[in-house]
């Protein structure tokens, strides 16, 4: 029994152990349950939100998007006002946006200028395994690789790209490597006249010189980061601090929001008004959902319609409200504080009437569950999937092309784990037995503390090895990941 602890069982009101020399408490009180204040960085900026540049298409062939993309060291300000060494795609953070249309043939000439191996994972896209940028296919320092794939029909939505090398994903993303992907549908059911904004939400923690503060894994903060995921105290939108979005009274804007943070889960709200939630990871829903606030776990995306309901001259804020995703051992002290992300500034009244919004946007066909080849249970605990850590030479789940599977993902710990499957979008059937109230295409599902989520997935194409993992980057880098291998169909017997 730990002799240095003072322990009491409340029912007895008495001490079970009484030795007092409690170095324990010094140790326990010192570490940072205290969350560093963002005060030093909280200066309000009047900058309007800028959109990341769009990757230039160098192809003249219709239906082909050919782009150059490099990852390399850069001198820039990850923290506005502090130029430091960073990593960047084509020299900017966030990286340039890859804009494509359904059906496009995409060629990305990638050059790794980093001093270390990397990959690019096209998060959420349904493309061949060799093009997925998984840790199985690292691209060495100084090497080139052409990522070539076709954007599937029906996949219009918001996606993103980021590095996915073995063990170093969290580091490379903290250094600035992430960018958005927008897949457009020529027959988009939402009016093209809606002003569109892209919001890439990232957080980071900085040293006084503005470089990313990445803790020694053996320090107390390092241990907390491994547990919580590295959560930054500085919240950025498209790399900007507290930017402004101008909106006209009466106008409706379409926002695409991506959470590229390593671990932070946002609970987005504009206090005083509701939001129309129209889509998530795999694009639009069948119908809009009116919500007060909405959770956006790391690596998830959403589409919102934001209505300018206030008079000219007024302001509103997009906030992230408190959300307790944490284990009690490492829950930051200030978890229960709402934080502003950006301001909405009402400039004037819209001269145009807002276009009518469709009540039904599209059909999301349910995956047929009459022939399910496998029902699987995946147990998420802290850093482990089914009690194991990642082994690059092991296949954890084997399946076949054409199989429909139901995965029951059970989180057995007191901490949320956003679960991501590469390559295949799935549909959520139920959470703790409660049927999902709407149907959508997902590639990440946040499995809450002690929650069980069932998803259905169909492996309709692309044999090969695919990752599935917790998208808290520190968990992923420490091995909370497994490999799914989809094998080609069995050869038919000749009669």
């Amino acid at each position, binding site marked *: *029994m730990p002799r240095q602890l*003072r322990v009491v069982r*409340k029912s007895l009101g008495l001490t079970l152990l009484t030795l007092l020399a409690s170095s324990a408490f010094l140790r326990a009180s010192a570490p940072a349950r205290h969350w560093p204040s963002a005060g030093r960085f909280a200066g309000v900026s009047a900058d309007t939100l800028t959109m990341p540049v769009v990757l230039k298409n160098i192809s003249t062939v219709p239906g082909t998007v050919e782009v150059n993309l490099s990852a390399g060291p850069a001198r820039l300000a990850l923290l506005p006002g502090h130029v430091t060494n960073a990593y960047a795609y084509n020299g900017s953070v966030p990286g340039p946006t890859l804009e494509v249309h359904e059906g496009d043939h995409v060629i990305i000439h990638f050059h790794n200028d980093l001093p270390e191996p990397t990959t690019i994972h096209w998060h959420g896209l349904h493309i061949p395994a060799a093009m997925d940028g998984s840790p199985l296919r690292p691209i060495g320092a100084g090497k080139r690789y052409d990522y070539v794939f076709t954007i599937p029909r029906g996949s219009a939505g918001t996606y993103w790209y980021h590095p996915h090398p073995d063990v170093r994903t969290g580091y490379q993303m903290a250094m600035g490597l992430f960018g958005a992907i927008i897949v457009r549908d020529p027959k988009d059911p939402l009016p093209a006249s809606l002003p569109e904004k892209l919001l890439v939400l990232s957080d980071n923690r900085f040293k006084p010189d503005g470089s990313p503060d990445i803790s020694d894994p053996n320090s*107390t903060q390092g241990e907390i980061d491994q547990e919580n995921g590295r959560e930054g105290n500085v919240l950025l939108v498209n790399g900007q601090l507290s930017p402004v979005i101008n909106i006209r009274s009466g106008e409706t804007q379409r926002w695409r929001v991506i959470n590229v943070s390593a671990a932070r889960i946002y609970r987005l709200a504009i206090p005083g008004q509701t939001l129309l939630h129209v889509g998530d990871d795999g694009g639009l829903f069948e119908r809009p959902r009116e919500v007060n606030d909405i959770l956006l776990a790391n690596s998830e995306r959403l589409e919102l319609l934001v209505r300018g309901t206030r008079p000219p001259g007024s302001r509103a804020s997009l906030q992230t409200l408190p959300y307790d995703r944490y284990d*009690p051992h490492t829950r930051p002290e200030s978890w229960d504080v709402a934080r502003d992300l950006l301001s909405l500034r009402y400039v004037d009244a819209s001269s145009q009437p807002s276009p009518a919004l469709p009540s039904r946007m599209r059909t999301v066909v349910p995956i047929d569950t009459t022939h399910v080849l496998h029902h699987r249970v995946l147990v998420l605990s802290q*850093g482990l999937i089914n*009690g194991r850590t990642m082994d690059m030479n092991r296949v954890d789940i084997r399946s076949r092309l054409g199989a429909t599977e139901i995965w029951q993902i059970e989180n057995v*710990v007191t901490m949320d784990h956003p679960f991501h499957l590469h390559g295949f979008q799935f549909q959520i059937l139920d959470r703790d037995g409660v049927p999902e109230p709407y149907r959508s295409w997902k590639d990440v599902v946040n499995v809450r503390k002690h929650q069980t989520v069932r998803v259905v997935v169909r492996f309709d194409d692309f044999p090969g090895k695919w990752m599935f993992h917790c998208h808290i980057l520190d968990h992923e880098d420490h091995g909370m990941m497994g490999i799914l291998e989809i094998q080609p169909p069995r050869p038919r017997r000749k009669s």
Partner: protein
Amino acid sequence: MTISSSIRFRHLIWLAPLGAVLALAAFGPASSSRGVDPGARAQLMLGRSLVLNHDCGGCHGGADPGAPGWLAGMTRPEQEFLIGPCAFNTSAKPCFHTRPRNLTPDNATGLGRFSERQIFNALRFGLRPEDTPDVSITSMTQGKGNFPLHPHYLAPPMPWPGWRYMSDAELRAVAAYLKRGLKPVANKVPDSEGPPDFWASEYTVDKIGRYPAPAFPTTNEMEPK
């Protein structure tokens, strides 16, 4: 009431001679269930005896194996522990509430999703099953022989530092009884709190001694005359 009298008498049962336990296991009632490997049943019976004479139920629920809530974890707030200065002064900090968890094999709320090896590792090394890979641990050095680099320990006052000296066979028997000898009971116990190092600074060799124990006789001991 004095502090020493606060240790509940039932904890004295920890001192029950192991020999008696082994005898119980060896000569317990024969299996009445058909088709069960008698060796497997004997293992469960050994595990049951160890669970009884180590008073697992004293904290983890149930007065006896026939009582409701047997080993299903705490059910009332007053059954939790306060660890830290708040044991004496309720407003003192830090103050960690630790809670005896559900030891029945319920998947959602108990040990159902942990392997017998993970339970063994919890009893032998104090490692939280949900934070520790399901592997054989062959070293007591952090980062070696599958011992975690950053071990996460069970919350106090779980007395694993003493109980780890049980033999492999005994600890396996306890794990077997919990996983295969109990019916699952759904009882969600809120997770224990603790410092961010998951008590690692408490469970150092200096504080809890060596495993395995040094060979007999040490300087404090002598061969019987």
